[in-house]
């Protein structure tokens, strides 16, 4: 099993969710985060005082999928989230040791 973590542009969330459901992902966690990669921020001015804002609003998605699903899920995610411009985001893949369903104690891929 692998954990797929993706940082995407907030306005892409609906499109990406739809694509992931179509790719068979059943569980997903979404959080609002701030951050940056190579995308520059902007400057705000309040009563003559300049403030550099370089942490931009992004959306983080986390999901755990079976090993066999990793490639198709990543492809679907990338296609939906991409605009071709700097700031589109990144996808990270990490191994998961165990998954347990809280309701009935199921473990492993059956618990996904």
């Amino acid at each position, binding site marked *: 099993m692998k954990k797929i973590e993706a940082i995407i542009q907030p306005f892409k969330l609906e499109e990406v969710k739809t694509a992931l459901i179509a790719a068979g992902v059943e569980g997903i966690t979404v959080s609002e985060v701030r951050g940056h990669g190579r995308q520059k921020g902007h400057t705000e*001015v309040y009563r*003559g005082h300049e403030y550099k804002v370089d942490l931009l609003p992004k959306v983080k998605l986390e999901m755990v999928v079976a090993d066999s699903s990793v490639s198709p899920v990543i492809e679907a995610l990338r296609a939906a989230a991409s605009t071709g411009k700097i700031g589109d985001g990144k996808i990270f893949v990490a191994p998961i040791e165990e998954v347990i369903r809280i309701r009935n104690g199921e473990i492993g891929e059956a618990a996904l």
Partner: protein
Amino acid sequence: MNKFFPQGSAVVCLLGALLLPTLACAADDPAARMDALEAAAKSAQSAGDNAWMLTSAALVLLMTGPGLALFYGGLVRKKNILATMMQSFTMMAVITVLWAIVGYSLAFGAGSPFLGDLRYLFLNGVGAAPNADYAGTIPQQTFMVYQLMFAIITPALITGAFAERMKFSAMLLFMILWTLVVYFPMAHMVWGKGGFLNAFSGGAVPSFDFAGGTVVHITSGVSALVCALYIGKRVGYPESSTAPHSLVLSFIGACLLWVGWFGFNAGSALAASGLATSAFVATHFAAATAALGWMFAEWIENGKPSVLGGISGAVAGLVAITPASGFVKPMPALLIGFLAGLVCYFMVTVLKHKLGYDDTLDAFGVHGAGGTLGALLTGVFATNAVNDALKDASGKPAALGLVDGDTAQIVNQAIGVAIAWGLAIVGTFIILKIVDATIGLRVTKEQEIEGLDLVLHGEEGYTMES
């Protein structure tokens, strides 16, 4: 009749209804009927005046709570929102008690030219009967409670200078002493019977301050500067300072201030009169052009006009028109507002950063500078075509400002301004020293970093948990 009753037909009906019982009894005696008519007319006039004045008092209180509380609150960091609002709110409570016990007397009791006496201690004698020295058609209690709202907002304005770092106990003590030492004498000199600066009561230096450009804005603004310099900058200022946490709150506060200011300025006519209308119009016009002035200056300098700039400009215009509001015509009001927008924009965005002091919410840049500008321009644009209450030796309306041909009035205005500056600087400095020596002014560095809402009040402004 038209001079007093614009809605003629409605009031004639009212008069008729009031007079019916009297007329029935006095049917045969013309003199008695005249007396009854006069009494009814006076009663209707007083009713109109009192209704407006009580409304104005409520409007001015609205300026403090929640107007100023929101305006200031939105500009500070999230962790200090409650503490900032608490400062304004507490003035509503503490100054009321101070006023009731001794404040009204020290400000408006006839005493020396510099301070009132104790004739109204515990509001002795202040009841339904008018006080002809101040407002002959409304209960003295109305006048007293109206003036109270001014005494409340003036110290509240100062809190902008030391936001985010002042101890609550120290602020309380400071404000009580400041109101006693600076506000009451200044209010007495400008508005009190026999006041040194009161043009309408034989003052030695006759200056014009219709609604408190010197009494409220210069004293609070200059005192704010002294506080900012004495107390020192916030931790991490200016390198790690943060933007306003909620301009939405500040916007709401600013609009409440604009509307409330009609009570502040138009209410200073102390009657529901043509002069109140004139002050209302001048007030609104100045706010409008000041907002535009600040916005356009910003647009040119930064490439974008901002909401904070617009609302700050409006407040600056309202400050500047305050002393002039019952003395100037509408066109000069437009000009005064526009100049205030430009001058205060410069003070806040250029001068403050150049000089490096941390007047956190620009109490000096807006109120001190705007009030000074407005008080001086009053000497230019004041005209007896608007306000003919002051008579010359022959009983005709006296020339007021430069536009009337009085070239010396600006000097009187400047003296009033200088007295306000001097009293504010000296009084504030001494009080700061006393409070610092006894209980200390500032929270610790760690407390400042943690945030005043938790440290001083044990609360969080936004928990947002269901």
